[in-house]
């Protein structure tokens, strides 16, 4: 999936109990989603430390999505409620610093929502592709090739 030859890098943190299985279901049900969405499995969406998100951007990601269980469905009762508060504040802070907040997304996907995973990933991918390369929150060394001479 690309836009004008540009192919963004997307990192998706997926909760082991729901959205990771959702992504699996997307695959086994033959719903296609962009191959440049790289999935990282976490035990719960609230395992995603803000450092992980920033490091993902630093390492070259153009967009980061965090996928967790629907509110009320957390395997650990309340993990996703904490995720919601944390991400709300983090995204708001990044926006405050002038970093495009469309590059980050928190989305609830259950294990049975394979199609939702595929469409959410595709939509997010399109949004990020429109924004272009992430220049504002990245370690630019990860983007440029060493000059050869």
């Amino acid at each position, binding site marked *: 999936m690309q836009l004008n030859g540009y192919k963004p890098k997307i990192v998706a943190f997926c909760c082991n109990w729901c959205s990771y299985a959702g992504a699996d279901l997307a695959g086994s049900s033959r719903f296609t989603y962009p191959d440049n969405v790289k999935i990282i499995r976490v035990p719960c969406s609230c395992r995603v430390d803000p450092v992980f998100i920033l490091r993902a951007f630093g390492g070259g990601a153009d967009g980061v999505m965090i996928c967790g269980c629907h509110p009320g469905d957390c395997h650990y009762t309340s993990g996703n409620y904490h995720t919601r508060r944390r991400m709300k504040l983090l995204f708001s802070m990044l926006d405050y610093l002038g970093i495009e907040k469309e590059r980050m997304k928190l989305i609830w996907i259950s294990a049975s929502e394979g199609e939702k995973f595929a469409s959410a990933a595709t939509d997010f991918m399109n949004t990020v592709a429109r924004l272009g390369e992430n220049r504002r929150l990245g370690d630019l*060394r990860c983007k440029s090739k*060493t000059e050869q001479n």
Partner: protein
Amino acid sequence: MYKCSKESLGALLSAINEKYALYVPKKHGEGSVSSFEAYGDGENMYLSGITDRGIKELFFPQCEEIARFVTANGAFGVKETAVKSGYNVIFGARACDIKGLQTLDLVFLAEPEDRLYKSRREAGIVVSLSCGEPSETCFCTCFGVDPSKSGDIAAIGTDGAYYFEILTEKGRLLIPELSSVCKTTDDDIEAERDKIRAKAALMPAALAAKDLPDKKTDELFDLPVWDKLSAHCLGCGTCTYLCPTCQCYDIKDSKTADGAARCRFWDSCMYSDFTKMSAGQPRLTQKERYRQRFMHKLVYFKENQGIYGCVGCGRCVRKCPASAHMIKVIKELGKADERHT
């Protein structure tokens, strides 16, 4: 000796800037700190006092890439950062900072020589500016620094004019620029210099620190006063990073698009992980770290290199968030001298 009017300083600096990369002290408004920056359009120059950040970072930057590791077409290569050629000029440096460079030379230019530092040192033409407005925290005179004369070229500001005296061979490189704006003169400015020296020697910090500890490690290391002095040290790196003579660094590799970049960056002996090794940690408490820093400046460096590792710029005095600064240490160690004799 060259002389130009105060008004023509801009013309002189512009002439130098045409040919060389020129760095001058700048301060962008009241709220901002002062530091050395590229001359640019000459706006926001700050010549009326010591800068918050010194000239050390122009020779030994806070972070610099020293090499790249590249994998291309299945081959692995190491590419050392190239040394830049050509001279650059630093105008407005204070004598304390220049003494700081001489202190760094003892470390970086000793075998094995530091390639990048050496190249910057050779390329840097340092024009000092006499320090007519010392701060109450200045105690450079305690370390034999002459606040009126230093560097490759010594500039001194008097009421209506600037005088430039060339002190080194490298300083002669700027003769064409100096000649284009300044007149040569035989004026005697020694009296002006004496005024500056006398003023600096009378600063409260200089008076407080005039009795530097002249004792050996054994006599000072176990003094109980270290507990008191270090009690409220926060363990931050402010003193270290603003110090013109601190030279410790660490090295780290980071990922790049096609390999890795090796950077070296300032480190601070005040940090808890500074001496961390797989075998453990030799300096476990903040007291030990604090003692290390001040003993290094005032005792170890002198024992090893013959000069103090402090130049009396007073930055740590002004910026320490807990006011656990050098003057207090010097005074307490001075008292220790009395106790021992």
